[in-house]
């Protein structure tokens, strides 16, 4: 493994993180809060540490899939831990596990909180929570690729490891431009939402944080009652629409920019995504109309659309306590948690395109039982999907289920009811936020033991990075030979000191 290069990239990431931490510090100064000192301190430390790591440019910058996965996984763990320090230092979240949970939940765009009273936080911390969503949504390494010129095609490994979806491609030949285009679309959409929220009369600070939270499909709100606090149908509808939009593959937006409307609209994943949303909204509306909203169809439609958009895009904002809805609606939401948003979006979950591929290859298997000698090829958007991709999709599915089951098992030691345990893990692993039962819209994750929280931190990171980077990081074969490298290094240093 190219350790030098991994360390170098981690150093760059630390510098970026330091730069990002200066923003909440500024917010703190602006609102005259003491917490800015904590953010400033961590920012400076992070930049200094980062500079130390990047002093030596690696001679060999060759990079393979393994290094890409390890770098991405390490970066995200590092972000979660260092990003959590201001909470601990300022004393707003004294427990380190809680603080890391909160930050990991932010960066992975989960939005699950351990805080019982969000409004007690300083403005700086509220801003930081929402800002972590925005950074994590599109990805830090993608940002790194967009701003720092690095030569060679090896960097694609970083992008592949961080961007969601079964097939990560480029829009344009150069990876730097691709990353730049992605971030431009991202910034433009965020600004659009911000303007529309301001126009609807939402206060400045709230508009900024809400737009950041929606863009990353995160879900941290700055009010205890989340979006229900803004009692405006207009604001809630704007957020509904933008949650759905941020769950769309950014490739579609690029197509629209290129004025290739036909291929944008014909995108199979996009159609399926909208189909699933419409179907769920209709079912839930019919289901809750009489029971919850006593026949008020408009009210039912509004809240079911918001909740469906919030869950399928894996955002996790709430306007109403959907935990009190009938069993059918709750179950639909539970399934949506796993489906998730589109590939190449900022959302989490398994991704609609994976589900399409899984369904198609299952149908093919059934077909091959009926006609054992039949040959059929799985296609998506009229393009043949090769075996390697199909294999990785099935592997992804199996691995997700395995991690899910194992995590539920570990979390069940806390002794909460089935619904709570099942949905708590589902909501963290798929990066949604609120689940059902005790972790529903009115509850939060503070009820769990530190051990369960660590399990869920792992789930959030694994879910955001689509399982494999975290698994590669923790698999012993990855680190085979590392011991000898370190020993040799130490010996060399000793020799240097001695002679």
């Amino acid at each position, binding site marked *: 493994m190219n350790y030098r290069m991994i360390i170098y990239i981690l150093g760059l990431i630390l510098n970026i993180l330091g730069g990002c931490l200066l923003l909440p510090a500024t917010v703190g100064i602006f609102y005259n809060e003491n917490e800015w000192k904590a953010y400033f301190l961590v920012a400076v430390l992070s930049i200094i540490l980062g500079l130390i790591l990047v002093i030596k440019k690696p001679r060999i910058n060759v990079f393979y899939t393994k290094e890409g996965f390890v770098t991405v996984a390490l970066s995200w763990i590092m972000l979660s831990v260092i990003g959590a320090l201001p909470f601990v230092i300022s004393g707003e979240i004294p427990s380190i596990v809680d603080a890391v949970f909160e930050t990991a939940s932010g960066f992975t765009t989960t939005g699950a909180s351990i805080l019982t009273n969000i409004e007690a936080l300083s403005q700086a911390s509220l801003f930081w929570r929402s800002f972590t969503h925005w950074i994590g949504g599109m990805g830090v390494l993608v940002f790194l690729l967009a701003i720092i010129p690095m030569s*060679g095609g090896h960097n694609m490994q970083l992008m592949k490891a961080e961007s969601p979806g079964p097939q990560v491609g480029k829009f344009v*030949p150069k990876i730097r431009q691709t990353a730049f285009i992605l971030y431009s679309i991202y910034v433009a959409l965020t600004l659009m939402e911000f303007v529309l929220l301001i126009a609807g009369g939402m206060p400045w600070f709230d508009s900024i944080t809400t737009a950041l939270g929606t863009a990353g499909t995160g879900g941290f709100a700055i009010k205890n009652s989340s979006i229900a606090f803004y009692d405006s149908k207009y604001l809630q509808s704007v957020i509904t629409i933008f949650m759905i939009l941020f769950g769309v593959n950014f490739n579609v937006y690029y197509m629209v920019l290129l004025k290739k409307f036909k291929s944008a609209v014909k995108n199979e994943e996009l159609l399926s995504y909208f189909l699933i949303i419409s179907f769920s909204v209709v079912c839930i509306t019919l289901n809750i109309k009489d029971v919850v909203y006593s026949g008020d169809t408009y009210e039912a439609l509004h809240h079911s659309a918001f909740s469906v958009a919030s869950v399928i895009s894996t955002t996790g904002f709430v306007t109403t306590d959907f935990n009190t809805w009938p069993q059918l609606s709750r179950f639909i939401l539970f399934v949506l948690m796993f489906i998730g948003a589109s590939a190449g979006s900022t959302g989490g979950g398994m991704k609609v395109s994976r589900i399409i591929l899984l369904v198609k290859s299952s149908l093919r298997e059934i077909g091959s039982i009926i006609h054992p000698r039949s040959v059929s090829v799985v296609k998506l958007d009229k393009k043949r999907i090769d075996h390697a991709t199909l294999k990785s999709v099935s592997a992804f599915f199996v691995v997700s289920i395995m991690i899910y089951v194992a995590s539920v098992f570990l979390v069940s030691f806390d002794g909460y009811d089935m619904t709570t345990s099942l949905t708590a893990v589902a909501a963290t692993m798929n990066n949604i936020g609120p689940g059902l039962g005790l972790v529903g819209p009115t509850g939060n994750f503070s009820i769990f033991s530190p051990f369960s929280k660590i399990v869920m931190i792992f789930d959030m990171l694994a879910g955001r990075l689509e399982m494999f980077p975290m698994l590669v990081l923790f698999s012993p074969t990855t680190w085979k030979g590392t011991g000898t490298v370190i020993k040799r290094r130490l010996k060399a240093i000793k020799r240097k000191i001695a002679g």
Partner: protein
Amino acid sequence: MNIIIVGCGKVGSTLAEQLDKEGHDITVIDIRPEAVRRVTDSADVMGIEGNGAVHSVLSEAGIQYADVFIAMTDSDELNLLACLIAKKSSTCHTIARVRNPDYVSENHFIKEKLGISMLVNPELEAANAMARLFSIPSAIEVDTFERGRIELLTTRLPSASPFVDCQIKDVLGRFSGKLLICAIERNNEVIIPDGNTFLRANDKISFICNRKESSNFFKKAKIECNSLRSVMIIGGGKISYYLAGKLCDYGFKIKIIEKDKERCEYLDSVFPGNVVVINGDGSDRKLLLEEDLYNTDGFAAITDFDEENVMLSFYINSNFNIKTVTKINKLDIEDMIDKLPIGSVVYPKNITAEMVISYIRALENSAGSNVQTLYNIVGGKAQALEFSVKTASKITDISLCDLNLKNNIIICCIVRNGKTIIPSGQDQLKIGDSVVVVTTNRNLGDLKDILS
């Protein structure tokens, strides 16, 4: 520039990597997904799976914005068709790899009537490079500039040479003709020399000199320079076909040894009497001796197997006093191969890539940069850049010896009114000249950059 490359084989992927390093936007197309993946994993390029001669695939690759379209698949017909379709869909320049000798002979018709900008034939180019090596046997490398008008010869200075441990100005003093040593390769490092640089034994020196005087120099330097009369070629593929034709024209006696009977018969039918075709295994030592290896002057190992070529040349070079040329197609270990005593080495894929790249650099020049053409020389460790002097500036009309040049830069050649001048300190640059500069500095963008 926006460049589309169809076909990710050896040449296609080498091109993609090289052009990516030079900062172009590249899209590669190949029908084999694994080939596309291999290239996109190693170079910063966009990959598309599909048939490069299909319009919808090309438009997905953005043919309408492309500046250059390169077709490098195995099939000549596919390459030509892809170029035609690309040409019809945009205003790009098209480059096709065409290898079939039947088409190559109609080179001009294809270029003119079909509007294809450039046809490259790796085998023909490799054969040309080999023929140059056989006609100047003392050189281990021959690079050409200005469409073949200037030759840069590379040779190894033997330890017995009187020039060993001499300063270059003394060497030039002892030699009456005009000669310019542009680069010295010593222990894998390239030095751009000046008059005070010492030559050492076993240096690889690259110099410019015209052909007649070069043999004179070789004699003075005690470098063996018997001209060759007979060449033995192992392997009867396309390169051998072109090489034998070329060498035939130069009046060489040629023996081709080929395993396949039918191919032998074909070769025999196309060549006149001074080409002897032998059906047999070239790696059979007895056969080689029987065919009078002792009295052969040149030996070319051009079978389809790199390893066999290397071993053959190794054997010949260490046991006989014969000029050997080895073809290497696939082996990607040039550093090591350079160290083996196997004589001159020719890499068809690099030659092809280099040709296409210098064409693209020339295009780029018309789009802004002042470098007319750029050649990698001495195994890519130094570059020769060609500039044209368009306007009067600090460097024109001044004797070269008065110019304060940067380190590691040498003006090695001036072309004025179609005549090549090997410059000395008294020569001056005039408007309208073409200048070839050899340097180890990268990123030289303009002629003015050579001043310190």
